[in-house]
């Protein structure tokens, strides 16, 4: 395991995270917003795994498991809300759902 540098994994996690952030801010379609969120969560999980392996402890993977549970819960509720928005606003454009302003 010593061959793989620890910092490289963190850098990859960082790259994936900012890519997900860029996608979150740039895309209007709510579905893509959720997808970007998943990417960001996954990147965070990667960071945890790398940290756990750094110390050869199981804690990193335990946290990754919890992250997984959270992601699952978030996706299901998010998709249900997405469906409600689609029904109410007749579109998935996040700007169209911007009635709470001012």
């Amino acid at each position, binding site marked *: 395991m*010593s061959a793989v540098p620890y910092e490289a994994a963190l850098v990859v996690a960082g790259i994936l995270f*900012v890519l997900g952030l860029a996608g979150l801010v*740039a895309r209007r379609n709510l579905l893509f917003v959720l997808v970007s969120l998943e*990417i960001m969560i996954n990147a965070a999980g*990667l960071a945890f795994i790398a940290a756990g392996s750094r110390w050869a402890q*199981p804690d990193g993977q335990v946290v990754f498991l919890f992250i997984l549970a959270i992601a699952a819960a978030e996706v299901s509720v998010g998709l249900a809300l997405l469906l409600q928005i689609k029904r109410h606003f007749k*579109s998935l454009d996040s700007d169209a759902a911007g009635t709470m302003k001012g």
Partner: protein
Amino acid sequence: MSLLALVFYAAAAVAVVSTVLAISRSSPIHALLYLIVSLLAVAVMFFTLGAPLAAALEVIVYAGAIVVLFVFVVMMFDLQGERTKRSAWTSLRTWAGPGVLSAVLLAELLYVLAAGGSHALGPRPVPPGEVGLSLFSTYVLGVELAAMLLLAAVVAAFHLGSRKKASHHRLFEEPTP
């Protein structure tokens, strides 16, 4: 460079490229497929980092359940029709701002990492058994909480996704026509 490192870097490249592609597609299904590729690549990275259980769970739960749920929802409720003209999503104007933002954040992260020096990973991979033992001894409270969270999510998803009117409170009910 050893084989493991090579595999790691290759998987990293695949993950980054497919993520870029995932966020820039116009069709949701295409984006989801690229997402799956990205997740699989990340699973490979987990394995090379010495976390086999995590790799397996990434594939089974993340790519195999969560993204599949996405695909089901897109398919069932016909959200495919949300494709827009390619130019609107891929124009430079749309991506300039978020791009700069992301670059700034990445730069900060690299700066912090650069200051920290270089370390090597631990000597051995962490087997699933150890993870399981840790999970149910040290982190058993977290497990219970995660279970409750999932229950709440199930109830919420069921309620929010139903076709009936959202509120049935007697005070908010409209008179039946």
